[in-house]
């Protein structure tokens, strides 16, 4: 149970992919102008993170490691993630056109997103969580990996929504011309990241 809580806390707050690890800055700044598109992007990233982990984790531990080609993981993972996203896009377009309309346009954008690659890379080495819990190669399994990936995506969506909400509010205000637009978005991002640093102090069971 402690591991369960630690994984959720770590993935959503203490090691948030955007604000702490600074992965996925491209969609964070590019698709956060409107809350609706930020949610679409967040859901797409969550889905791809989960599916990518479910595929790459067994491929690494049961195929690449025994064959001695585990040093090729980055190239292999990019291969796998890009092809998964390609297939996913086609499948969603066929099965659910309405879902495709809200989410489909973001899928091609995340074929080589570093947040997705980052989450799949995370489970290849020891993973330390809040409360001095460490998932090493003996305790790590597909279930924990999938849980971490799912909540990493939820943490990603959370930050995207916070950022888009703040940027929408910024439209109410007239900013000086020199910093209006992208510069003020960078400043906003900076404050969100600083706020998330507070969660680093979270401990479990102390």
């Amino acid at each position, binding site marked *: 149970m402690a591991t369960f809580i630690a994984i959720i806390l770590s993935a959503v707050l203490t090691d948030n992919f955007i604000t702490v690890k600074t992965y996925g800055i491209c969609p964070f700044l590019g698709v956060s102008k409107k809350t609706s598109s930020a949610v679409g992007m967040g859901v797409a990233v969550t889905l791809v993170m989960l599916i990518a982990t479910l595929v790459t984790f067994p491929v690494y531990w049961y195929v690449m490691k*025994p*064959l*001695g*080609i585990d040093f*090729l993981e980055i*190239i*292999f993972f990019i*291969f*796998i993630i890009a*092809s998964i996203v*390609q*297939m996913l896009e*086609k*499948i969603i*377009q*066929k*099965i659910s056109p309405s879902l495709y309309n809200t989410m489909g346009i973001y899928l091609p954008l995340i074929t080589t997103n570093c947040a997705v690659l980052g989450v799949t890379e995370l489970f290849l080495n020891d993973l330390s969580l809040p409360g001095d819990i460490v998932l090493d190669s003996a305790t790590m399994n597909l279930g924990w990996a999938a849980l971490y990936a799912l909540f990493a995506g939820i943490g990603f969506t959370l930050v995207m929504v916070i950022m888009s909400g703040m940027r929408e509010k910024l*439209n*109410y*205000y*007239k900013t000086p011309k020199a910093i209006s637009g992208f510069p003020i978005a960078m400043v906003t991002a900076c404050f969100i990241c600083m706020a998330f640093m507070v969660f680093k102090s979270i401990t479990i069971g102390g």
Partner: protein
Amino acid sequence: MNLLEFGPQTGITIGIVAGIFAGVALLIGILILIVGKVFKVDVDEKITKILENLAGANCGGCGCSGCSGFAAKLADGSGNIADCHVTSPEKKAEIAKILGVELKDEERTVAVVKCLGSHENCGDKFDYNGNQTCAACASLLGGNKLCSFGCLGCGDCKGVCPDGAIKTENGVASIDPDICLSCGSCISACPKHIIDRIPASAPVYVACSSKCKGKDVISACKVGCIGCSMCAKACPHGAITMQDNLPVFDYTKCTGCLTCVSKCPRKIIIKRDVVAPESPKPLESGENTERSA
């Protein structure tokens, strides 16, 4: 088993790695091909043809998300070409031909601000010193005007107008009907929803949006509609009906006799200077880059 044990020399190692990648790439390629075949979606070629003929302003005036959404709606028959106010009549005829429908003669429309509540006419509820945008002002108790349906005059509509047809004077916005292309950007930008479309040839319009009762209107604004329905009774053609304490015009019946203008005790039915029905230059599809920039 370790694949790399087979080749002790570097050259052979690289060869093995390259072989692995070629194999995996082939496998994934075949997989994507199969998925693509199984989950094939037929794209209606009508949509691409319609999209070529639309103005491409992506203004959202039709209520769809951009021109491609509108094209899809037209293709499946749920959309109406008349909802696009930017595409030129010739291009619309082309689209009608693609769809195989008759294009009805429709009239050019213009947007009007249905409010005359300038600073002299409509007082302030409180002093507003916040950011000078209507959206921010309206989020604070619905704005600082005494009338809750009044124009806030901060010019959000002016900011979004692609043609520069809107000016704000003395706390109320007005739209130049000769420049307006009726794209609808201002209609969606106005937080008070007091901008509306009327036919360009309409002889009169009601310059008030207040749905309040007469007594409340009188206490708030010097030029607000009190809902007395004098115009509706006086109209000899039955073109005016009362709805939510406001007169609603049926412009197909209105002949421009101006009886309502003279009868209105608040003088808020405004006679428009309808000039020759010469339409302004509609947007050609080539110009849209300039407009969206």
